[in-house]
């Protein structure tokens, strides 16, 4: 059997405030999968995603990436882990006052010494790589624009280009389309799908929308109140299954 790329074992997370983020999660993800995580706000989707690149530490359990436990990584080792995991965010998180080019190049700093990157001494290859990444997301014409001049959908595509600069094996996307309109939503989701198909990057996306999940996912994982309540490949997913994931939501709205 093929070794899983990400192996999450009995992971729990309790925040300092006492809030339970995750409860005993077990999940393995294979290389090349396109996984969509669904669930209500506060179900733990963001927390789960952020434990994979250690933006959050787990309280209990273990996470293995390519067979190696990552939960005790520190300093340089941690930064090396993070640089092979791209991340995109609901609010895009581009540095708004910097140019698109500088934003995209900043995705590469994990490969540079402090001095070289701080002085902006990026190699010719990496500058070309930035152009290629922008071409990949169809944003090459905006390379010299300031990030805050772009629309939301354009910013998210630049953010994807920035993540591509890391040469990521895994791409984490935390509600990437929550602040976008339906048209740009499709452009961004198509982009993620293409990275997955063309470049073989494993993609994990948090989504609110069930129809979108059904449309793009190879596999759907459901979280409810920090627990994993659903995990099926797309062929077996029934629309009715989501009632259990969103159980309680209807009652709250009454």
């Amino acid at each position: 059997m093929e070794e899983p790329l990400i192996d999450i074992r009995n992971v729990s997370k309790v925040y300092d405030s006492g809030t339970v983020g995750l409860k005993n999660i077990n999940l393995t993800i294979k290389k090349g999968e396109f996984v969509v995580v669904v669930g209500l706000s506060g179900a733990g989707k963001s927390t789960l995603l952020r434990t994979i690149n250690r933006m959050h530490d787990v309280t209990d359990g273990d996470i293995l990436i390519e067979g190696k436990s990552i939960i005790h990584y520190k300093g340089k080792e941690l930064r090396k882990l993070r640089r092979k995991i791209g991340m995109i965010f609901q609010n895009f998180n581009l540095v708004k006052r910097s140019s698109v080019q500088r934003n995209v190049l900043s995705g590469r700093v994990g490969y540079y010494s402090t001095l070289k990157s701080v002085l902006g001494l990026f190699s010719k290859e990496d500058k070309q790589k930035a152009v290629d990444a922008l071409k990949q997301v169809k944003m090459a014409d905006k390379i010299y624009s300031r990030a805050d001049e772009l629309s939301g959908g354009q910013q998210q595509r630049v953010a994807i280009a920035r993540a591509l600069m890391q040469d990521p094996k895994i791409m984490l996307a935390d509600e990437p389309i929550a602040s976008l309109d339906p048209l740009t939503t499709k452009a961004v989701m198509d982009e993620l799908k293409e990275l997955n198909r063309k470049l073989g990057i494993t993609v994990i996306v948090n989504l609110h929308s069930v129809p979108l999940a059904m449309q793009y996912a190879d596999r759907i994982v459901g979280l409810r109140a920090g627990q994993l309540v659903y995990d099926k490949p797309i062929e077996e997913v029934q629309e009715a299954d989501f009632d259990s994931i969103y159980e309680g939501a209807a009652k709250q709205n009454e």
Partner: protein
Amino acid sequence: MNEVPKRTFAQRFHLKFVAWSVLFIVLLCGSAALTGVNWGEFFSNIGQFFSLIGKMAHPDWKYVQIVIQPVIQTLQMAIVGTTIGTLVAVPFSVVAARNLVKNPVIRGIIRFILNLVRTLPDLLLAAIMVAIVGIGPSAGVWTLAIFSFGMISKLFYESIETIDNGQLEALRAAGANYFQIIVFAVLPQVIENFISYFLYTFEINVRASTVLGYLGAGGIGMLLQQSLDSFDYSQTAVIILATLIVVLVIDGLSNYLREKLD
């Protein structure tokens, strides 16, 4: 359920606002009584004021030549002092910002030092610096450097604390280290504020440095002291006019540049 609730008694009569207003008025009257502020005294002595104005009404224009050099020195003191203060303030403000340094002990120590520096008034600093490095402009430069350091580091770290942390998170998630996060995600967000605060502090320092000379810390203030001590009000008038022009020009320039930044 879906009804507008009744306001409480305190809410209806704005008790909080009334109480604070009464307290403020009591404090104001109390302070005036204790310090012996007397309007009558002020107006009965106003003749003195006009006689002084009269003596200054004939500026000694030949004195202008002598004033120019110290005016330039005053500006130089302000430029060098503000720059030194700013350069030292940048690393301090980065360490004092809550969103960049999670360790409350380190942050607390740095902030304590900054608070300590800020409690020293500029005139006291000038007196100390004159005692340390002697009479002359270098005492003024050090005074302004320390004064600007205290002020700028506070303005800077408060400005850093208002930035969008999502942009830092993105860099951290890409594997950037501390310095790379500062240079790529923090500085672009604050640099315009930094320049604006630098100009603002420079403005204040130009004004302050005209007075510092009075304590022997160089610049135009030294001439001011000489002319006042020798009751040569026609010279004093020239000095005051020169100071006024310089301060107005610097204020205008700095305001113009700061507006351009936005």
